[in-house]
């Protein structure tokens, strides 16, 4: 029998993933847990394993597609599965169709056993609303009691999805007989004078097959002129979609040449690469942080001769335990001491709730540059760990980030971030806050620099510090006091013994 496999939540609370590439072809035999596709989510690339032994019947998406979690991903043919039990007992057991176990099978939808339940709890009215608004209920985070999905949750999800590719109802079935989307570019040569204006509605009634057709033809169903109204809503037929696709899209295809100014290319031209996946995630987060939080960066320099000596001494001891001891764990412990003294720096502003959350956890994110882009693994509960343990955690997480085996959980839950751009070089910077945190500490390169003391200038080991704060929450004085407190512990590392 056919088994529809929906894209699982491959991270924690991931709503969609980009299909990087298929690892199998239609018709291939697969075994349970064999990877069938590579999918890239916000911050990690994962392999999606087959849930069963069987044969690949249909690969429902193309490489490069962004696939909503919970949408049918692959259809497998599975040799005689659960149905068998029923057929075996043709007579007696069939009599018991009206049974608990059957009713359960129907209710449970034969969900894969032995895994965490994936049921989404929501009242029928909310489930209906989700279908009306084309919201994938399984990807909505519920705010009701025990995480039940409420009407408000669905409406919020619908709003945030507007503009993004709508999550189509998972039920869309049978491939339509229409040819795959005629490439708009090719068709644009034959511009139809009667190209239709996009209607641009918020909501449209249409049969699922019509929605499927619109999707195939690359048409936004909300733009298709309605031929009739049903229950006060615009109703669109397959014919209207077809007509719009032929006329309307063609007209759109023509638009760039007619409307937008031609881009002038300098000699030598340019190459382009897609802005998506991790690059895009980084970009979006940076923009959100910078546009949301007014940044102010406080700069200072710690004289760390003693820390250099201490670390030199401890490095070998650490090496005996196979731990590479860098300065970072010392800075992390010093920073956490500062966070405890100045809790406002370990905070999050929840504007919607009119509250500032002061975090009781001291989870320090460490920005790591990787071949795939910037990643921020989080060392949890730094306050409860020894310097050696922190070092161990940092090394392990950084390695995982570099080879991309890091899990989403290991990059979540941070309360404060440290970025060590000095590893590459430089003194001061203006780090961008890892939003919604409210502060980030940037470390410059440790080097010998001139220091004036008691009327003398001497060469001392120094560590330049750049602390960016969200000025909505943290005042400049607090930033300076926090930095002083941290510096004191870097200058005199013995104080860390008290931590």
């Amino acid at each position, binding site marked *: 029998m056919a088994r529809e496999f929906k894209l699982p939540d491959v991270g924690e609370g991931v709503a969609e993933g980009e299909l990087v590439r298929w690892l199998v072809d239609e018709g291939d035999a697969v075994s349970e847990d064999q990877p069938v596709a590579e999918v890239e989510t916000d911050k990690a690339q994962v392999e999606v394993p087959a849930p069963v032994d069987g044969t690949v019947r249909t690969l429902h998406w193309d490489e490069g597609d962004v696939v909503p979690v919970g949408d049918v991903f692959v259809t497998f043919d599975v040799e005689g599965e659960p149905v068998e039990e029923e057929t075996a007992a043709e007579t007696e057991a069939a009599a018991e169709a009206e049974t608990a176990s059957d009713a359960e099978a129907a209710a449970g939808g034969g969900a894969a056993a032995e895994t965490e339940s994936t049921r989404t709890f929501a009242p029928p009215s909310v489930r209906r609303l989700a279908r009306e608004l084309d919201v994938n209920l399984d990807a909505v985070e519920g705010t009701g009691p*025990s995480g039940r999905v409420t009407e408000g949750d669905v409406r919020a999800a619908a709003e945030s999805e507007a503009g993004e590719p709508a999550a189509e109802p998972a039920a869309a079935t049978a491939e339509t007989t229409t040819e795959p989307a005629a490439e708009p570019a090719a068709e644009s040569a034959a511009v139809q004078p009667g190209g239709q204006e996009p209607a641009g509605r918020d909501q449209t009634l249409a049969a699922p097959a019509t929605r499927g057709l619109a999707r195939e033809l690359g048409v936004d169903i909300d733009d298709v002129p309605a031929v009739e109204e049903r229950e006060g809503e615009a109703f669109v037929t397959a014919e209207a979609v077809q007509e719009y696709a032929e006329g309307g899209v063609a007209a759109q295809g023509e638009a760039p040449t007619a409307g937008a100014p031609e881009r002038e290319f300098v000699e030598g031209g340019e190459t382009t690469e897609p802005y998506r996946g991790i690059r895009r995630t980084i970009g979006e987060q940076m923009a959100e942080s910078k546009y949301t939080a007014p940044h102010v960066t406080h700069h200072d320099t710690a004289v760390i001769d003693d820390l250099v000596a201490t670390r030199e001494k401890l490095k070998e001891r650490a090496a005996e335990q196979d731990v590479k001891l860098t300065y970072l764990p010392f800075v992390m412990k010093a920073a956490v001491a500062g966070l405890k003294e100045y809790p406002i720096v370990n905070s999050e502003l929840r504007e919607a709730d009119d509250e500032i959350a002061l975090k009781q956890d001291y989870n320090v994110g460490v920005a790591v540059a990787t071949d795939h882009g910037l990643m921020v693994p989080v060392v949890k509960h730094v306050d409860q760990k020894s310097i050696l343990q922190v070092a161990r955690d940092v090394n392990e997480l950084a390695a995982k980030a570099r080879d991309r085996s890091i899990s989403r959980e290991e990059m979540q839950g941070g309360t404060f971030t440290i970025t060590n751009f000095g590893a590459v070089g430089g003194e001061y910077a203006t780090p961008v806050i890892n939003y919604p945190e409210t502060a980030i500490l940037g470390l410059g390169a440790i080097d010998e620099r001139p220091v004036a003391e008691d009327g003398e200038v001497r060469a001392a080991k120094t560590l330049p510090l750049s602390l960016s704060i969200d000025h909505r929450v943290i005042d400049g004085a607090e930033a300076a006091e926090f930095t002083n407190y941290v510096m004191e512990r870097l200058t005199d590392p013995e104080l860390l013994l008290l931590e």
Partner: protein
Amino acid sequence: MVVGDVSTGTDLAVVGGGPGGYVAAIRAGQLGLDVTLVEMDAYGGTCLNYGCIPSKAMITATDVAHEAGHAEDMGVYADPEVDVAEMVDWKDGVVDQLTGGVEKLCKANGVNLMEGRAEFAGNDKLRVVHGGEGQGSETITYEHCIVATGSRPIEVPGFDFGDDPVLDSRQALAMDELPESIVVVGAGYIGMELSTVFAKLDVDVTVVEMLDSVLPAYENDLARPVKQRAEELGIDFHFGLAADHWEESGDGIVVAAEDEDGDVREFDTDKVLVAVGREPVTDTLNLDAVDLEPNDDGRLETDTQARTSVENVFAIGDVAPGPMLAHKASKEGQVAAEVIAGEPAALDYQAVPAAVFTDPEIATVGLSEDAAADEGFDPVVGKFPFNASGRALTTGHADGFVRVVADDDSGFLLGAQIVGPEASELVAELGLAIEMGATLEDVASTIHTHPTLAESTMEACEHALGHAIHTLNR
């Protein structure tokens, strides 16, 4: 009636007028579609005419007689006389009222009713053959079709429903006079419901079951009170026996059944009722013409919108996968009609309730404890016995219990199993709770009327939370 082969066009053709088909037709009519409903026998289908409704009528009538005659401990002394022919007449009156209502509702919603047997004649055509000689046939051209042909009783080789002493459930509910004795083949829900009816009418009942228990599809602790009560009523059970054949013997017949080892047991009786299950009806549809093929179960595979592998053909009820239940068929019918009308409907219910109208009744909804664990939940269970319910004791029926299954972490209700008085009614509240995503706390905190059986549901939820008032906590 139309004579000769004429053709009509329709937006939606519904094949079969049972609780799936007529509900689909009415909903489609409400949504403005031009609907044609084809029924070959009787509107309301098996459920209204030969199944759920007539059996419940007979169960209630025999309960009235039996209760009246067995209430000495309440100080009531009576010896009711039962006229079975009148009882059957009364039952037929109820059925007529309901089927007449279905016909009226269909017409009021603009549904075009057509009598006859429909088969596919292409991927947009049905051929409807009218009953009776010389009545001819006609063709319907449709945009969409809903197949709702239901199911029929499974025949056991050696027991032809055409033979006089061999009864199916439909015939058993329409007898003018009672036999002195009857052998019931099958201890599933139909067999057990009808065995109880006959036993309460003082017929000598022997049940022959191939598996090793009554209601083999239900959990043991649910089936146990039913078996116990059946034995009190004088029903004789024989398990592990497969009915083989029957033959005439003097005034009556002998039913022969074989055990695993091939040893034969014989039972002298007047009639034999065969109730071993039902099979979907797809063989009359000429499915080849529309490129559909039933699966190994004989059902038509469907998706979450009740759509078959053919884009414009839907299947609902007993011909679609899932439990053979009227209310499940109705739900699928509504969804199919709405989808065809372009609405964003889907079969996304959490649980399908089921009820067995034995004495005592059994009702279940959602997951059992084991099934919940299999689905990845961490189940917690709460139970309330009816012998701790004031209301149950005052009805004279205090066997059984209400059991609820919930997820321990979140408290979400996942399932319930009830055996006892009015279980079929009590399960509705839990169905609603599960569908709404209610937690144990939600139900436990809802004030329930005292004194009612429904309080037991609240108490079972409190028990799961560890603070039931009227029963000892875990």
